[in-house]
Each structure stands twice: as structure tokens, then as C-alpha cells.
């Protein structure tokens, strides 16, 4: 049994079948890539995992527990962190402050009234945040206003915010879109390193095949809301159905 088990999930938007009969099993400590043409339902699937959407049918189990009906913060506290397709960061805060918030969430839980302690006295957390920023090559930007950063930097910051929580399952929605080539390669290296060092399961949505084939242990191809094939990366490469799905979209 995988750490993440998606069974018969379906989701409709009005008349549009965004997802139907989705079955997915992600084994612990592996990287599972989900690819597919635009509008295939990839982001919708992630939304169903983190409590942003509730599927119309089916079940989603994480670590032996159902995530359905739980609010996003509860799901995160179970050990799932997510990077969004459009970067979701605290744009009005500094980079360092952005990093401190997930650390507080991890240490103190969903809520704690710590109104007179000082953020600047949290030496251990600050050091942890700095180490993480260093890992994503952003330590020099620690004091920067997050809104002022490039799109690629915002993505790296968001990824660092997720990684610093040390999640059991990391969900990445096109983490390298809008990144320069060098940063993309750094991101790949970072994720490979994290995979080796930590007990972490990764589910990644990505259009960049270089990223996919560098990281994925298994790949699911999603088309029009349904998984088309699921296989090892080497078997996906030349798969006729995959080509069809991508070419079909071009018409």
C-alpha cells in the first residue's frame, strides 16, 4: 500500500468532467510524476488532495487516514505540503519572515497565542530557516521584500517554505515553470539531494520532460481527467498512447 492512495476519484465542474475514475497509488519515499496536456485535470487532482476541493466521488487516503472533509491546515499538519502552480507566498513579508511561518506551524501546531515572545529570539528556527535558504541559494535575499522578487525566485521561496516543514508528502505543481535554466537545474539537484537524505515522498506535475525524467520513479499520464497509463519512466518515453494524448491536444 502506498502512502497516498487515490481511489475512483471524480470531480465535475458544472457539466465539465475535470476528473473521472482516477486511481493512483504513490509508494513511500518515491517520486511520482503526473504529466499530461493543459487542462487534463492535474492541478484539480492536487486540489483534491490538499482540501482545496472535495471530490464528488471516491476516496483519498494519506498515511492510512482519509483526507476528505479535513480543512487545508489539518491536512498540512498530517504531513502534506504543496507548491502551487502560481506561487503562493506572503508577498508583503520579507523572505525570512516567509520562512519563519512554516517553521512556527511545524513547531507550534495550527494555533498558538505567542503574543509577547519575540520572533527575533527564535534562534533555532532562524538558523533552520537560514540553512534552508542556503540550500536554495537564496540566503543573500533573506531581507528582501518577497513581492519584489522574480517569478522564479518566488517559486524557489515557496519550495523552500514547503521543504523546511520536512513534509512526508511534497506536492509540486510545475515547480520550475518560469525559472531560468540554471535555476531549474539547481532545483533538480536540490530535489534529488532531498530525496536521498530525507524520508520524503514527492508527487510532481511538470511539463518540462527533462525535470520529469531526472526525478520520477514512476509516471502517470493524465488526459481529459483520467489516467491513461502509469509506468516506469523508460516505458513512458516511447509509449504510443502518450504521444497521442499530447498530439491530440495540439489539434
Amino acid at each position, binding site marked *: 500500500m502506498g502512502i497516498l492512495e487515490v481511489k475512483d476519484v471524480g470531480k465535475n465542474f458544472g457539466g465539465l468532467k475535470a476528473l473521472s475514475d482516477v486511481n493512483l497509488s504513490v509508494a513511500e519515499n518515491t517520486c511520482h510524476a503526473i504529466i499530461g496536456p493543459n487542462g487534463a485535470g492535474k492541478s484539480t487532482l492536487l486540489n483534491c488532495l*490538499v482540501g482545496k476541493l472535495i471530490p464528488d466521488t471516491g476516496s483519498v487516503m494519506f498515511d492510512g487516514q482519509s483526507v476528505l472533509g479535513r*480543512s*487545508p*491546515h489539518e491536512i*498540512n*499538519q498530517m504531513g502534506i*505540503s*504543496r507548491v*502551487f502552480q502560481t506561487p*503562493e*507566498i*506572503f*508577498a*508583503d*513579508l520579507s523572505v525570512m*519572515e516567509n520562512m*519563519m*511561518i*512554516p517553521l*512556527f*506551524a*511545524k513547531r*507550534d*501546531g*495550527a*494555533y*498558538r*497565542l*505567542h*503574543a*509577547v*515572545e*519575540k*520572533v*527575533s529570539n*527564535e534562534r533555532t528556527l532562524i538558523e533552520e530557516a537560514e540553512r534552508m535558504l542556503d540550500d536554495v541559494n537564496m540566503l543573500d535575499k533573506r531581507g528582501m521584500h518577497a513581492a519584489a522578487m522574480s517569478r522564479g525566485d518566488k517559486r524557489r521561496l515557496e519550495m523552500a*517554505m514547503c521543504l523546511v*516543514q520536512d513534509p512526508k508528502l511534497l506536492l509540486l505543481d510545475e515547480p520550475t515553470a518560469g525559472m531560468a535554466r540554471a535555476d531549474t537545474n539547481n532545483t533538480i539537484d536540490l530535489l534529488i539531494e532531498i530525496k536521498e537524505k530525507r524520508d520524503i515522498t514527492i508527487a510532481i506535475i511538470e511539463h518540462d520532460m527533462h525535470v520529469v525524467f531526472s526525478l520520477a520513479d514512476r509516471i502517470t499520464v493524465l488526459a481529459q481527467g483520467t489516467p491513461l497509463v502509469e509506468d516506469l519512466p523508460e516505458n513512458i518515453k516511447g509509449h504510443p498512447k502518450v504521444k497521442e494524448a499530447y498530439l491530440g491536444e495540439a489539434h
Partner: protein
Amino acid sequence: MFGLDKKDTSLLWVVIALTMLAPFILNPFPTGSGMAQFNAGYPDLMQRFVIFGIFAIGFNILFGLTGYLSFGHAAFLGVGSYSAVWMFKLLSMNILPAIILSVAISGIFALVIGFVSLRRTGIYFSILTLAFAQMSFALAYSVLTPITNGETGLQVTLDDPRVLGVSATADGSIPVTNLFGLEMRAAYDLVVGPWTFTFSVGYYVCAIVMLLAFYLAIRIFRSPFGLMLRAIKSNQQRLNYTGLNPKPYTLAAFVISGMYAGLAGGLMAAMDPLAGAERMQWTASGEVVLMTILGGVGTLIGPVLGAGMIKYFENIFSKINDNVLHSWFSFLPDGIEDFIVLVIHPFVGKGWHLTLGLIFMLVVTFLPGGLVEGGQRIARALRKKKEDEPKSPSTEPAE
């Protein structure tokens, strides 16, 4: 110092100096001179400065940090005043228990109103708070007359029980509010040449309470809790997916700011032991919004400045009537004098709202960060000038 970093400590010292020396600073003109009417250093007004400062500081903890705009905070101020007056009626004229009760009761009110209102965000939240405040106003004005004494307002009387004090003094008058015997209305006049400076016990009590409230606000701003509140304003979605539940944080901010309002209301009653429903009206709720925006939303000192500015206009600018204007411009030929007075007339006296409105529009348009941003810009311009000057070596002492 005080567990604050250097910048906050110096800000706190500046505010301490300004409030402690206010009787001098606000009375720059000799008594009896033509400009004396611009003096704001009399106890009644100085008390209002700091009391509304407290109100605005608390309001800013909610609005400035979380971005939730409440249009009903005057309700908590009113609740604070009523609570305090009841304490004066039933227990004693000592202001300490009265103020403690004000803060507690307004905190409970804020918990209930906040719990319901915070189910919505944005404009719906604002409307809900407004509705609650208007409801409280209506209740205080009519339905709850036994508690609030309706439109007359709640006052202390000679036949109040005051179990720990006396119903009436030996000479048959109502006892005055005090802090363990120290009367709030006691004052000392210092005459220096043509100047008169008044030091009032009431003002200094309010000022010290404001300093404590200000200090607490700094601590909240710099705490993990304050960081969470700013995160709520910035991106609630991200906060959710980061494993944090925004609801208890916003509710806590709402209750804290409601307690600040209650504290202000309690102090108001401590200075002048009466409470009326008009303190809860929506105009009063709107006023604290204006104060905060005028001074600088989300800044530490801004709300205090905004409160001071609006209260100054309300009390000083409003006193300039046509007679005063004529006396200023009497040196001009009659026709021109009348004309100038005619032009200025709508902006002063009863027209002070117009001037304040214009200033508010200018500030919001050109200084979105309020008076604080104005101050920062001036400071930056001055610093630049200094840097342009050739640097003299040596002298600068190492810190």
C-alpha cells in the same frame, strides 16, 4: 531595553518624552496672547489625545495587522464606559476596578461579536461589525434603559450604593473619581512668565496607561502572533496550506483590539464619570478608522498621531470663528478683510470637518502610508542633504 530592539526602544523613548512633556509642548503660546487659542495643553483635551490614542493603537492591531476593517469598534468603547460608570455607582470611585471591569466586559463583547463577524471577510465582515455596533447603540439608547439610562446617559448620583466608598461626601456632593485617593481632577498650575502650564493627575494617569498600551502593541507587532496576523493580511490561502488556522488568530486580534477600545472607554469614564449611547454610534467607529488611516495603517506610532491630529482639529480648529478671523486680518483694508474672511470661513469653525476631509484626501492620495510616511520622506530627504555635504572626518562618536 524593555526587551525591544534598538529602533523600537528609541521610538518608545520619543513617545515617553512627548507624552510626559505634553503640557509644555502643547502650550507654546503665552496665556492671553492672540495665539493662545491654539494651545492644546489643557487637561481635558490632552486626556482625549491619549485616550483616543489607545483606541486607535488597539484598532490598528486588528486593521493594521490583519487587514480586517471593523466599522463597529465604538461599541466596545461604549461598553467600556458603561462598565466603568456602573463600577463607580456600585463599588467605589476608585478608577482601578472600574477600568479592569471595562476591559473585561468589552473583551467578552468582542469575543461574541468577533466570533460571528469573522465568519465573513472583506466588506461583509465590515458590514457585520457595523450592524452589531448599531444594534448595541439602539439597545443602549432605548431597550436597555435600566442599564444605560437611555438618552440621558448613565451618571453617578448621590444615592448610589458605592459599597466600598461613600454615597455622598461630608459636604453632600458626589465623590470624585480617584486612584487610591489621588483625585483625577486635581491639577497643578506652573506659571513661567506669561506662560501657564497645567499638570493634571488625570492626564498623567491616562498617559501612563497609553504608554503601557503602546509598549504592549510593540511587543505584539514583533511577536510570532504579530507575524501570523500580518501573514493573514498578506495571503490567507498560503497560511492555510502552511498548516495554520487563521480563525483563532483573527479572533484573538479582534478581542485584543476590543479590549483596547474598552480600556479607552473606561478611561473616558474615569476622567468624567458618565456614559452615553452616542459613544457607540457609527460616526465614532468611523472616526477611529480615519485616525488610523490618517496616521499610517499598520505602523506603530501612526494611530497615535492620527488620533492627535483629528482631536486637535475637532477641538482647536473648530473654535476659530468669524470674530477671530476679523481680528487676525484687521490690518487689511475693510473690503479685502471681509473678502478674505469670507473665503476662509467655510474651512474653520464649524467647517473644520471640511478642512480635515481635504487633508484626509490629500494624505490618502499622496501619502498612502499616512503621516508616518510623510515623516519618513522628510527624514530621508534630510539625510540625503546631509550625505551631500562634505563629510568631516573624526568627530562621530562610536556607538
